[in-house]
């Protein structure tokens, strides 16, 4: 790092603040805003998690009661299961397709710019709009998908009512929106691989498939790790998709997240407990429980990708 201004020695912190006041002032907005809108609220939510509060009346300290209730709350566990199911159903096809797309983009030179833009556009499209669209094409009665199935003389599927199909709809939405983005990320990684590696392999008689498995995949390992981790963190926080797909004008929607809560994700559950039912303390407890789940799940993903990669390379 460059050091155009000599660092102060000795005279102590007071001098530093005096000498460098423009610098401290320049970086302060971030820290002030962060303290007010993030750090403060995060600490307060930890405090809230041990209380019962409806947002208006007095707070009651309840110790671990929120967490004791959480462990036995079948709806919380169902929301976690739903979230993981949606993660699995979306991440696996998404990253696989992205890898294939990236390999194809890497192989073709012409129209590369056009393809990239076309694949990236879903990612910048409003999630609310995409959810409304998927809700309409997967509609049970008059959706396009069922129209096509009927035309093919296949019985229509109750997409928006089945426990599994609801998750499938949400997962396909996520896949549509993020495959192109991940393909672009993989493509960046592929273009950075030293072409001499491939030439050497070709001289040794390796085919394209072997090259892909022995060179591309191992070389992409850090980027694959990045996409796996980001997808895990992202899908653990799925909220808008089920909220829009199964939105209701009734605030005490008995079927939040679809029939039988089939698409109720943990963040949607948190939202319902806090903002529909005014259970702020319990909502905060759910938020912290989810935070721990995300930490644990990220660590597991990290371990799996790095170990898997090492075995491949070795």
């Amino acid at each position, binding site marked *: *790092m*460059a*050091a*155009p*201004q*000599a660092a102060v020695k000795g005279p102590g912190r007071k001098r*530093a603040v005096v000498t*460098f006041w*423009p*610098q401290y002032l*320049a970086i302060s*907005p*971030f820290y002030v805003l*962060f303290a007010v*809108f993030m750090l*403060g*609220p*995060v600490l307060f*939510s930890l405090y*809230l998690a041990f209380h019962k509060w409806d947002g208006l009346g007095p707070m009651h300290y309840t110790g671990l009661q929120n967490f004791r209730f959480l462990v036995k709350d079948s709806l919380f566990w169902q929301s976690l299961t739903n979230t993981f199911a949606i993660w699995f159903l979306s991440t696996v096809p998404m990253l696989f397709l992205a890898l294939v*797309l990236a390999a*194809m*983009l890497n192989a*073709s030179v012409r*129209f590369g710019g056009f*393809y*990239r*833009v*076309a*694949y*990236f*556009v879903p990612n*910048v*499209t*409003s*999630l*609310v*709009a*995409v959810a*409304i*669209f998927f809700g*309409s*094409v997967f509609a049970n009665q*008059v959706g396009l998908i069922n*129209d096509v199935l*009927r035309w093919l003389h296949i019985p229509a599927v109750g997409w928006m009512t089945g426990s599994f199909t609801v998750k499938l709809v949400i997962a396909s939405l996520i896949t549509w929106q993020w495959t192109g983005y991940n393909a672009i990320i993989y493509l*960046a*990684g592929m273009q950075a691989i030293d072409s001499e590696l491939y030439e050497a392999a070709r001289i040794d008689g390796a085919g394209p498939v072997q090259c892909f498995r022995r060179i591309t995949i191992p070389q992409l390992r850090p980027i694959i790790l990045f996409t796996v981790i980001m997808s895990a963190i992202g899908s653990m*926080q799925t909220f*808008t998709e089920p909220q*829009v797909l199964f939105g209701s*004008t009734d605030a005490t929607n008995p079927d939040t997240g679809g029939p039988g809560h089939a698409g109720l994700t943990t963040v949607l559950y*948190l*939202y319902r407990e806090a*903002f529909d039912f005014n259970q*702020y303390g319990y909502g*905060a407890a759910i*938020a912290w429980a*989810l*935070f721990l789940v995300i930490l644990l799940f990220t660590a597991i993903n990290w371990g799996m990708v790095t170990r898997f990669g090492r075995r491949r390379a070795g």
Partner: protein
Amino acid sequence: MSQAVSDKSIPATRVGRAERARRANQRAGARRRVQRIALHLLLLAGVLVSMFPFYWTAVMATNTTEDMYRNPPALVPGTHLLHNVHRVFQNIDFLGSLLNTVIVSSATTLLVLFIDSLAAFTFAKFEFPGNRMLFRFLLLTLMLPAQLSLIPRFVLMVQIHWAGTLNSLIFPGVANAFGIFWMRQYIQGAVPDELLQAARLDGCGFMRQYWHVALPAVRPALAFLGIYTFITTWNDYAWPLIALINPKKVTLQVALAQLNTAHHTDYSMVMAGTLLAVLPLVVVFILFARQFIRDVMKGALRG
């Protein structure tokens, strides 16, 4: 086609070999061509999947809902767009919510660009006590998931009477550690120390070094961060849904969701609203897309 070999000009004994080599070459060329065509067909199939929702949204938005309920439904764009749009305007305050979204996205973007580039410039080019530690702390803040602060942040907004106002959307979004990280990386490479030194010798203070030397040199990075921030803010849904407690004063995304919740069986109307809400941003994005995607790719390699 490869160049024709005239049989007469080559001695009879060699014709066979030359002819065989030529055919082998042709076969290899043909195989490559078939492969290339297959590759583009596959890639085009992907484009079709990517683009189909836009087409189908347009089909639904330009036909009547009855056309969509028929079996088979209308498959090509119709002529009822204006009628559908008119009904959207009757059901939600489309222009009002569009204006709110434009205000929030622009204000957030401008504040992020100024605050982040100034902080990034300071971190990248000045050695002051605590520089490294403060920057490390900033990176750590990226690890905090948003939902941890959700409930208390809403309580805070109610207490300072910001709930229901656009302020509640703008200011929390400005504390953007990613932007500072991104800009710092860029400034380290794009702003030469010699230039800053020269500016200092000319009597430029801290702010003038930032404004006259650093900012002009980092315009491409500002463009990327600006587009990224604008799009993310424009599309944000969860926080506006919570913070805007007055259902009459909302952003475009929230209004769109309200429209869908209340009238989701009236496809053509809902889709006309969706089309209007999506199209401007997508068109603007496409104008800047190539450079933006290049920056995303560069960023991926740094991560």
